[in-house]
């Protein structure tokens, strides 16, 4: 049997951050070693504990918290397939992403911490490099369906594509995906990796969403800010029913 991996390596293994060929070595060791399996279970338990309490905390971000909003947006367009984790397989279903009660709290605890208002001065290189907040471009089209919802159809999405919906202040968005696709959710975001044949992915952003982004394969497709909606990617075609159709794959919409 190979030497015991360090606790840090087991944490990486748990978080899906160990790359081949080391992944195979660690995986075989953990399967064969009761001691390491126990440690992995302990790490997983601690992770669940922290996630359970931090989810509400991180979700307590008002729509006006531009710094966190920009972090989410920047991350959505920077992520790579190698960094995805906690992917759960799903059949054809409706996914719910919770921005939770973000607007309910008057202040963002994360922002307070970020700004050093908790009484702890940041030191050294601790402060992350935040993307610069930018004004949301107002160019584009205003599109407000009668019932306030935004219905989007991403046409021609094929296996290996991914779609991410980022929300600022609403409780949920719905995404219909083909069977076999997988998803990952977090506070204010929903990430879907598409599997199976080329399909149309339908997204519903509910009434009241002050800000929302739809990102497909590193490309920003839709950006909503207030009543303004811009389409930095493919040009939209709005159907009679009000659905916004955006072509992802080849062919005309």
């Amino acid at each position, binding site marked *: 049997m190979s030497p015991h991996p*360090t*606790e*840090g*390596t*087991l*944490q*990486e293994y748990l*978080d899906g*951050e160990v790359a081949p060929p080391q992944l195979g070595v660690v995986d075989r060791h953990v399967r064969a070693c009761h001691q390491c399996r126990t440690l992995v279970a302990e*790490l997983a338990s*601690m*992770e669940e*504990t*922290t*996630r359970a*309490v*931090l*989810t*509400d*905390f*991180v979700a*307590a971000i008002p729509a006006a918290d531009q710094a*966190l909003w920009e*972090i*989410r947006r920047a*991350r959505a367009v*920077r*992520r790579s397939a190698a*960094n995805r984790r906690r992917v759960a397989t799903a059949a054809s279903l409706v996914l719910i992403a919770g921005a939770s*009660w973000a607007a*309910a*709290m*008057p*202040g963002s*605890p*994360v922002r*307070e*911490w970020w700004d050093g208002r*908790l*009484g*702890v001065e*940041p*030191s*050294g*290189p*601790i402060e*992350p*490099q935040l993307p610069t907040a930018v004004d949301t471009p107002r160019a584009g089209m205003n599109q407000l369906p009668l019932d306030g919802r935004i219905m989007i159809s991403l046409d021609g999405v094929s296996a290996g594509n991914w779609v991410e919906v980022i929300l600022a202040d609403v409780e949920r968005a719905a995404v219909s995906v083909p069977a076999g696709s997988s998803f990952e959710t*977090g*506070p204010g*975001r929903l990430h879907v990796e598409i599997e199976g044949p080329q399909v149309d992915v339908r997204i519903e952003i509910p009434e009241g969403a002050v800000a929302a982004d739809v990102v497909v394969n590193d490309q920003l497709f839709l950006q909503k800010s207030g009543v303004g909606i811009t389409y930095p990617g493919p040009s939209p075609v709005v159907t009679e029913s009000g659905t916004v159709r955006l072509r992802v794959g080849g062919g005309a919409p």
Partner: protein
Amino acid sequence: MENNRARLLRVHGQDVSSEEMPAEQLERAGRVAMVRRALLQLSDRDRTLLLLREEGFAYMELAEAIGVDPSSVGTLLARARRRFAAVLGA
């Protein structure tokens, strides 16, 4: 005497005389306050790791944020979680 509701409202910057806060929101406000207190007992680095990881940052991004080698992130994250769990359980 200031009751719990008034205290929580004050802690979270709301006017006590404002509209009634639903019980569920009050409970969440209490949880957020508890987590904030626990996070305050951690180092800057531990807080940064826990919060940015919860935001979904990958190890490479975390390493960049706190200025360490990416190979150290797993160890630091495990320790941060252990300390956070201990503070919460205290």
